[in-house]
């Protein structure tokens, strides 16, 4: 295959990775801080797409405003899930929160089906059909915008965790919950902050990825499964692990579809997850401290 084709595959893979990275980052935050596998984030991805759709379509809001709107709403919803469902259940152990997460995913899907119908929606990109073409390599303006926003969001979260006081507190809570309580970190409140952040990221991903692709109330279910595999691959609770994992899986999927066959592409993420579980159970960038 020629160079332009290879470059085009790289662009495609990078774009797929962006969605995975946003969702996986939220998942890993929640998992790291609260040890909850929040599959309901898949529904928030879907709702992010619907908020953006209705904001632009029905309210006439600019797409650029609709994305933060989606983030706000899904962030709030995730916080509610955390406060009303997960927190009361958490005392009874992990299995219960897992079942609850799947329950919320299904309920939100069906509520969306009932509210919005099963029809396919399409968010109109403000960039229309605009594209950057280098030789035969095509990157649409919308894709470029998504990549830039994703980079900013990931970078922002990264900096926030690294340098701000709440960010450090979140990391502390993930690494050593008891000591975090002892230095006076309010684990309940910060746990909700993790939910809000993760929800907002999932909502952003939904709103960003669903322009120029058809979506319906079931859009988030597959994204969440793969993102969860990515979190395990990268290391549960590891932020760089989620981002690197998203890149690895997104690229591996693309290359599998490109050079092997599309029918194997979706297995790659899970295969990588299984391989890593044997070779390095803590995940690619997960750490185990003695």
């Amino acid at each position: 295959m020629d160079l332009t084709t290879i470059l085009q595959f790289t662009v495609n893979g990078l774009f797929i990775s962006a969605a995975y990275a946003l969702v996986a980052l939220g998942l890993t935050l929640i998992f790291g801080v609260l040890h909850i596998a929040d599959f309901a984030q898949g529904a928030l991805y879907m709702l992010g797409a619907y908020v953006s759709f209705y904001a632009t379509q029905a309210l006439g809001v600019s797409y650029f405003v609709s994305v933060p709107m989606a983030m706000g709403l899904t962030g709030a919803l995730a916080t509610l899930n955390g406060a009303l469902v997960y927190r009361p259940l958490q005392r009874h152990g992990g299995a219960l929160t897992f079942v609850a997460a799947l329950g919320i995913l299904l309920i939100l899907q069906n509520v969306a089906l009932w509210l919005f119908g099963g029809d396919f929606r399409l968010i109109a990109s403000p960039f229309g059909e605009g594209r950057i073409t280098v030789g035969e390599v095509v990157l649409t303006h919308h894709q470029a915008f998504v990549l830039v926003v994703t980079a900013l969001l990931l970078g922002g979260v990264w900096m926030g965790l690294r340098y701000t006081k709440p960010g450090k507190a979140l990391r502390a809570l993930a690494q050593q919950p008891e000591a975090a309580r002892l230095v006076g970190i309010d684990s309940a409140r910060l746990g909700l902050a993790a939910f809000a952040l993760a929800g907002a990221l999932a909502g952003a991903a939904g709103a960003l990825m669903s322009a120029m692709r058809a979506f319906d109330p079931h859009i988030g279910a597959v994204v969440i499964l793969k993102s969860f595999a990515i979190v395990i691959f990268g290391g549960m609770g590891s932020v760089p692990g989620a981002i690197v994992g998203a890149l690895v899986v997104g690229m591996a999927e693309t290359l599998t579809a490109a050079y092997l066959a599309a029918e194997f592409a979706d297995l790659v993420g899970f295969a990588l997850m299984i391989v890593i579980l044997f070779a390095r159970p803590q995940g690619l960038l997960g750490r185990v401290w003695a």
Partner: protein
Amino acid sequence: MMEHGALRPVQDGEPVPLLTLQGVTVYYGRVRALQGLTLEVLPGEVVALLGGNGAGKSTTLRAVSGLVRPASGHIRFRGQELTRLDPAAIVRLGVAHCPEGRKLFPEMTVLENLELGAYVRAGRLDEDLRQIFDLFPVLRERRHQLAGSLSGGEQQMLAIGRALMVRPTLLLLDEPTMGLAPAMVVEVARAIRVLRARGTTVLLVEQNVQVALRLADRGYVLENGRVVVEGRAEALARDDRVRRAYLGG
């Protein structure tokens, strides 16, 4: 030297206790870890809690810092009831807990660990950091290193340093010498003496009874979640029962 009984009435001229535990009972599930434990710590004292595994020493500290909630009894710090407060509120009152096993934030630097120690406090930390680095110079050298990569002794210093960032009136120290090399034990003991000289009150849980009694003013011996013997450190060191049980002679 006296057998344990109800709290003494505070007499005129006698110092008011900084911390009192009165009839504190704690359950872990169905297991009763503390059974009506009563003790007091006076301002400026170093008080040691002695006893075998499962005697309830760590649980006592955890009850004071709010990690476990007593089923009954009172814990008063400067007269204020602690049993209904959460750990964040208790640490704000100036009670710092340096937990057993050090419990550092392993993927954060030494400096970040210390900064988090002052989580509930606003304001500049330079002076606190300088004091801690003076106390443990090795931490200054390693301030940008990840806590998880430190040696056991260094980790213990960091754990104490993190607790000191609270500027505690009362420091709860749980097994600070556990698993340390003898040279490090000396180092940690020296630090406790410095703290004591600065007027920090310390409630110390220590497996090494010789070290504990050398550092402490007074001690309580716990068995099955209640105090069985209490007294001045020198007296405890001579007490037959203590010697037989803990000093191997």
